[in-house]
C-alpha cells in the first residue's frame, strides 16, 4: 500500500479513537452539568431540552456558599505551597547538585526515599496538633510542601546540572557573595524549570484529596476536592449538581493547562530522567 495512504488511515483512526476515549468523557461531564435533575439522571449523551445554567450558582450557594469558602482555601493552599516549594527546593536542588560529598549524598538518598514511601499519617497529625497547626490552612500547606519536596528537588537538581560552573566562578572572581549570586545569577537561570514546578505542583496540590481529608477535617472548612466528596453523599441522585461541581473545580487546572501545556509535559519528562 502507498505509504501516504497508510499514514492517512492511521491518522484518522487514531484521532477518532483519541476523541472517543479522551474527549467524550469530558463532553459528557459538561453536557450533564447543564441538564435538569431528571435528564442528568438518564446519564446519556442526549442534548438537554433546555440549558440549566442555574446549576452552577446553585452549587456555589449550597451550604451557605461553602464552595466559595472551598475555592478560597484551595487557592490559598496552592499558592502558599508553590511559593514555599520554589524557595526551598531551588536552593536545595542547587546545593545538592553542586556540593558532592558523603553528607550530601546521604541527604539526597533521604529525599529520594520520600518519593517512594507513604507518609505516616497519625504521627504527622500528632506533631501538628502539638505545635498547634492541625486543622489549619498553614498546616495543610506545610504537609503539601513536605510531600512535594522530593520530586521538586529532583527537578531542580537535574536542571542545575545543565548550568555551567564557570558562571559562578566568574561571579566569585568579581566579588559576588553567595546569597547575591544565588538570587541574581542562579535563580534567573532556573526560571524554565521553575515554570514547570509551578504548573505541576499547582495541579498536584489543587487536585489533592487525601491530605485535606486527613489534615483539614471538618465539613465547614473544606477544599474544593472535599466539596465534591461531600456532595457525593448529599447529591447522590442529582448528577447535574455533581457534574457542575466537577466543571467548576476543573476550571483552574484547565486554564493552567491551556496556557502551559508544553511546560507541564517538559516538567514531567525532566523529572523522568535518571535521578
Amino acid at each position, binding site marked *: 500500500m502507498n505509504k501516504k495512504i497508510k*499514514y492517512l488511515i*492511521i*491518522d484518522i483512526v*487514531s*484521532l477518532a479513537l*483519541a*476523541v472517543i*476515549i*479522551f*474527549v467524550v*468523557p*469530558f463532553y*459528557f*461531564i459538561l453536557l*450533564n452539568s447543564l441538564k435538569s435533575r431528571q435528564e442528568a*439522571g*438518564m*446519564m*446519556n*449523551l442526549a442534548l438537554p431540552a433546555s440549558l440549566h445554567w442555574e446549576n452552577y450558582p446553585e452549587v456555589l450557594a449550597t451550604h451557605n456558599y461553602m464552595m466559595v469558602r472551598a475555592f478560597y482555601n484551595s487557592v490559598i493552599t496552592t499558592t502558599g505551597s508553590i511559593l514555599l516549594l520554589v524557595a526551598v527546593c531551588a536552593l536545595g536542588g542547587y546545593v545538592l547538585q553542586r556540593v558532592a560529598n558523603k553528607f550530601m549524598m546521604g541527604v539526597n538518598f533521604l529525599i529520594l526515599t520520600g*518519593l*517512594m*514511601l*507513604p507518609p*505516616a*499519617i*497519625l*504521627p504527622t497529625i*500528632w506533631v501538628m*496538633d*502539638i505545635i498547634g497547626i492541625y486543622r489549619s490552612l498553614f498546616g495543610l500547606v506545610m504537609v503539601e510542601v513536605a510531600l512535594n519536596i522530593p520530586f521538586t528537588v529532583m527537578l531542580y537538581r537535574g536542571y542545575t546540572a545543565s548550568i555551567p560552573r564557570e558562571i559562578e566562578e566568574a561571579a566569585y572572581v568579581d566579588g559576588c557573595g553567595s546569597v547575591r549570586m544565588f538570587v541574581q545569577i542562579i535563580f534567573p537561570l532556573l526560571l524554565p524549570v521553575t515554570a514547570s514546578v509551578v504548573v505541576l505542583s499547582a*495541579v498536584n496540590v*489543587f*487536585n489533592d*484529596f*487525601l491530605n485535606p*481529608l*486527613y489534615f483539614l477535617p471538618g465539613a465547614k472548612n473544606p477544599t474544593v*476536592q472535599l466539596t*465534591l*466528596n461531600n456532595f*457525593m453523599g448529599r447529591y447522590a441522585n442529582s*448528577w447535574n449538581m*455533581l*457534574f457542575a461541581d*466537577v466543571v467548576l*473545580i*476543573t476550571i483552574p*487546572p*484547565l486554564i*493552567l*493547562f491551556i496556557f502551559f*501545556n508544553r511546560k*507541564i*509535559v517538559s516538567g*514531567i*519528562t525532566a523529572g*523522568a*530522567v*535518571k535521578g
Partner: protein
Amino acid sequence: MWTLTDFRFVGLYNFRTFFSEYSMRIGIKNTILYAVLTCGFKAVLALGIAMLLTSPMKTKHIIRSLVFFPNIVSTIAIGLTFSSFMHPTRGLFNTLLAHFGIMGPDWLGDINLALYSVIFTDVWKGVSVATVIYIAGLQAIPETYYEAASIDGAGGFQRFRHITLPLVRSSINTVIILALIGGLRTFDLIWSMTRGGPGFATDTLASIIYKQYANGFYGLSTAGNVVMFFLIAIIAFPLYRFLISREVDI
C-alpha cells in the same frame, strides 16, 4: 477528639488485630493486585501509544494534548464520572453494550468485577503520564541507529526489539516505578468509586487505613500505615535497584 497525652503501650496487639481481620488480608491482596495490574497495563499500553505518537503522523500534536487531558482533572472527579458510566442500567457502558444485544454487568456492584472496574479507570487516567515519559525517551534515540539497522536489513520488529526496547529502558523503569508505587498507595479512585465496597471487594491498604482512622481506631490505622510502609519498601527498593542495574546508555 482523641487525646495525645493519654496512651497505653500495647505491644504488637494492633498488628495482631490488623492481620487477624479478614478485611485486612483481602486488602493486602487487592493492593498488590491493583498495583501490579495498573502498572503492567500502563507500561505496555503507553509504550504503544508513545511509539504511535512519535511516528510521522500528522495529527500527533493534537492527540498528544488529548491523551494528556485526563491528567489535569482530579482523580476524585474522574472516579465520579466513571461511576456514572458504570451505572448498571443507565450508564454509558451498558447502554452501548445493549445496542449489541449484550446484557452489561454491574461494573461496580459485582464483587468479582468491581476491583477490575476501578483498575480500568486508573489505567485510563494514568496512561497519559506514562505516554509523556515514553515520548521523551523515544525522542532521545538518535535516528541514525534505525537507519543503520535498516541498511543491515533489520525488519520492523527487529528494530523494536534491538534498538527501541533497550534504549527506552530508563523510561520504562521510570514508568514502572511510578505506576507501581502509585498503585500501592491508591486511595482517591477507590474512595470516589466504591468506598471499598461492595463488602470489602475493593478495599486497599490506604482505604482501610482511612476507614479505621475515620472510625477512631487510631492504633489500627497506624499499624496499617506501618504495614503499607514496609510493603512499599520491600517491593520498591529492590525493584528499583534491579531495574537500574539493567539500563544501558545511549
